[in-house]
């Protein structure tokens, strides 16, 4: 009996060892020219269609754009060439002429032509939004697309607006092969687009055309070719659940720059999965990854793992619901800005990937300095951690201190609920630090956690929270950055080239700020109007507007900027070298694009 049991155990052990060994000998490790990276949303059932949200076309690998945006502090229109070799735009942004890469070919050997780009533009119209909004007079919309020759194409901005986002929205377009997608489109697609976007067309004709395009858009986005036809450096070979394999495209126009013969993309749905892969040394590159200090140490302990970092045009802020008393009083908001120690909060909340905000301007610190200068930023209120100044502001708001607690003018104690979403460890830790700091000085603050991010976003939009974390300063486009503070969430919605303000609680306005406010040195300012002007201004004009908006934001504090994010990435130099350096302007792009630009070489 004992012998049998022993034999059984031995057999089980042998099997486990064999299986374990099989599991360890991933081909990705044995083949030195296979590049392994991570990707979210890999779905074996999804179509090979870059317009689909859950796609098996992967940016920079087998999905190509006309250009690749640089990570620039001030120039949102700075791009690296993609399938476009070069481009020229008229100063009024109305005409954009694009020359395609002369040697660009699809993986079936056919050349990439201007007709492919025009088909891609039709596809973009079918999906709507940005420069391809199917609405008459849409700000920054494409008015006409003209093929000038097989390798040259012209985009005209629709009359009535001169939007500076036109170039970047067009260059950001996915390029798909006409030979594959053209047959899926009706022959009159451009007539439909013309009618749907023509301000002179009757409402009935416009509406009918828009409905047809919308229905077509759904059909087109669901469509996926059986075989990948890629103009990128790789072609999709297969997708298993949770992993995609791509092989090098011999027809890629810069194939000589591409070192790996294959790319394996591993799916992830949470940071922990990336950490495990990194600690095990399985990944050659992992894009932006949030890591606590202890995890970072473990990752860097693995041979070959290296960290690269650069600026990220994103800031974490504490946003106010200004329709709630006493947060409607600017003195209270200023008092809180003095009471919160941003250095301490950043050290606790985001010690690895965050830099304490110098002050609140609406832009990350480096971008603010680049736009309006170090002097101008230094002259703004820095809101240092200063209890005396906070006390003075609270007294201006009619409060007094009694028994160690701040009491409002109506006799109620001043307390706060600070909301954070579950799963955002940096916000939760930062929030707890702030709550502790405020409670210590007599403002009892409780951190409340929403079930998940979707719930958080929904409830914050409904005005259910008085104080919560909010991403701000989203660059590089200054319009995008200020629209976080003076856009729909604070009552300003775009209608064509103009904006209209809705009162608190209406049309998504949960921040509840005043439509105008008087700021010393500026007079009465409508920040939503100024923000909207940013979309249609040249850099010199933007500079003046930003100076005003920075001052306004600093004075009125719709949110307190806590920290600027740092873009932390990890690469492994055991198998490949020549990765981008710290602060490189390609750090927001995927490794497939890095390869196109000449990075990543075999060791």
């Amino acid at each position, binding site marked *: 009996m004992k012998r049998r049991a022993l034999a059984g155990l031995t057999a089980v052990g042998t099997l486990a060892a064999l299986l374990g060994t099989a599991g360890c000998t*991933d081909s990705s490790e044995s083949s030195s020219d296979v590049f392994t990276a991570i990707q979210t949303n890999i*779905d074996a059932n*999804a179509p090979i269609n870059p317009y689909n949200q859950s796609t098996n076309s992967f940016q920079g690998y087998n999905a190509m754009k006309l250009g690749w945006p640089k990570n620039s502090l001030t120039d949102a229109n700075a791009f690296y060439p993609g399938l476009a070799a070069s481009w020229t735009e008229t100063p009024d942004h109305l005409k954009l002429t694009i020359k395609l890469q002369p040697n660009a070919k699809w993986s079936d050997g056919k050349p990439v032509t201007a007709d492919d780009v025009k088909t891609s533009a039709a596809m973009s119209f079918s999906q709507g939004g940005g420069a391809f909004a199917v609405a008459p007079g849409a700000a920054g919309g494409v008015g006409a697309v003209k093929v000038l020759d097989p390798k040259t194409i012209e985009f005209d901005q629709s009359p009535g607006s001169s939007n500076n*986002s036109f170039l970047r929205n067009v260059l950001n377009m996915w390029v798909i092969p006409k030979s594959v997608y053209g047959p899926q489109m009706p022959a009159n697609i451009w007539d439909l687009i013309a009618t749907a976007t023509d301000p002179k067309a009757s409402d009935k004709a416009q509406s009918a055309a828009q409905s047809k395009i919308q229905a077509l858009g*759904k059909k087109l986005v669901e469509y*996926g070719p059986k075989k990948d036809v890629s103009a990128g450096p790789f072609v999709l070979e297969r997708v298993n659940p949770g992993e995609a394999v791509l092989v090098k495209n011999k027809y890629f126009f810069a194939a000589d720059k591409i070192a790996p013969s294959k790319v394996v993309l591993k799916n992830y749905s*949470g940071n922990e999965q990336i950490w495990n892969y990194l600690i*095990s040394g399985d990944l050659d590159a992992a894009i932006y990854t949030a890591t606590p200090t202890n995890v970072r140490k473990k990752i860097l302990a693995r041979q070959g793992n290296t960290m690269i970092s650069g600026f990220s045009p994103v800031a974490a802020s504490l946003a106010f619901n200004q329709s709630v008393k006493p947060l409607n009083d600017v003195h209270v908001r200023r008092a809180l800005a003095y009471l919160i120690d941003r250095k301490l909060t950043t050290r606790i909340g985001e010690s690895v990937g965050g830099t304490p905000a110098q002050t609140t301007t609406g832009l990350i610190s480096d971008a603010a300095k680049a736009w309006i200068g170090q002097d101008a930023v230094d002259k703004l209120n820095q809101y240092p951690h200063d209890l005396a100044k906070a006390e003075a502001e609270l007294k201006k708001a009619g409060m007094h201190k009694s028994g160690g607690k701040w009491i409002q003018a109506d006799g109620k104690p001043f307390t706060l609920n600070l909301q954070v979403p579950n799963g955002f460890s940096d916000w939760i830790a930062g929030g707890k630090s702030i709550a502790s700091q405020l409670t210590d000085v007599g403002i009892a603050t409780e951190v409340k956690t929403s079930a998940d*991010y979707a719930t958080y*976003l929904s409830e914050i939009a409904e005005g259910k929270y008085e104080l919560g974390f909010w991403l701000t300063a989203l660059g590089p486009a200054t319009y995008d950055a200020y629209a976080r503070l003076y856009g729909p969430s604070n009552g300003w919605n775009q209608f064509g080239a103009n904006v209209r303000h809705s009162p608190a609680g209406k049309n998504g306005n949960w921040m509840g700020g005043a439509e105008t406010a008087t700021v010393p040195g500026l007079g009465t300012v409508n920040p939503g109007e100024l923000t909207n002007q940013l979309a249609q201004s040249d850099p010199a004009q933007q500079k003046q507007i930003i100076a005003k908006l920075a001052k306004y934001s600093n004075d009125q504090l719709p949110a307190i900027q806590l920290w600027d994010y740092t873009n932390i990435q990890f690469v492994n130099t055991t198998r490949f070298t020549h990765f981008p350096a710290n602060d490189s302007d390609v750090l927001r792009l995927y490794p497939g694009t890095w390869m196109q630009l000449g990075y990543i070489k075999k060791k």
Partner: protein
Amino acid sequence: MVAFLRRLAGHLVRGVVMIWIVTTFTFVLIRLMPGDPVQTQYEKLLSQGVSPDQARAQVQVTYGFVPHGSWLSQYGDYLWKLLHLDLGTSVSAQGVSVTTEVMGALKWTVGLVLAGTLLSFVIGVLLGVVAAMRREGHVGSVLSLLGSLLHGIPQYVMALVLVTFLTVKVKAFSTGPVDGLLDPGFNGPYLASIVSHAVLPAVAFALSSFGGYLLTMKSSVVSVLGDDFILASELRGIKPSIVFRYVARNALLPLFTVLALSLGFMIGGAVFIEHAFNYSGMGAMLIDSIGNRDYSEMSGAFLLITVAVILANIAADLLYSVVDPRVRREGAGA
């Protein structure tokens, strides 16, 4: 036979009604969840460092796939499609039918949890018998303690411990998906890769589950050992191995129901384990669909779990009468 068929028909009718009630309940529950799929996707992309321009372009298309209209019209549409075995189209994987998504994930989960459940059942039953037979000695005490301890450790803790020690510190096993560089199909390396990726999650499942079976089996065996027919068998000098068979057959009956229900629950039961091992099954799909507020996928997944549990209940009920003649006789008598 007629009585059996009548019982089966009754079970099926009740099952269909239950499925309809649960389907309606989950339909409402899902729509009561706060959160907008488009806004959530957009903000998630921003938090991952994607620029607003790119994030806008990426989520634009999602809007067309979010169910619109009144709840009543959505419900009517949902039921009509359901009657045609159509679970709808995924919101996050546009154009992909929920059936394809669910079935794609299901095969991985069934393999994993079936192996884990059977493993935990076999280990639990065997050790439960030993614990009962040796209940007066150290072996019985140690096994009971072990069962209680492991039963008390949540699955995700067990999974994290195994991930940390056996995939990160010692690279004995792999996490994540099956090695994509291997040719998929019925070939040795690919099958070995599938098994090697499933071994550890299955072991995690078994380790955190067998304690329950052990304790139930022990208490059941102890109870049966005190029955008169065991005493009578011993007094009649029947061989201990045959007596053991009597004990096992009778003691197993309560566990049979537990096992059948566990198999029903297995479809949605490995959420934490799948997440910890980055295993692409139903649990991972369910978590993603909830995070993305993908109403169609959530409905499809919940429906499948409901159907599985109800069918397992029916199967347990019917098969119980097969394995326990007393139930059969009582049924006939009634």
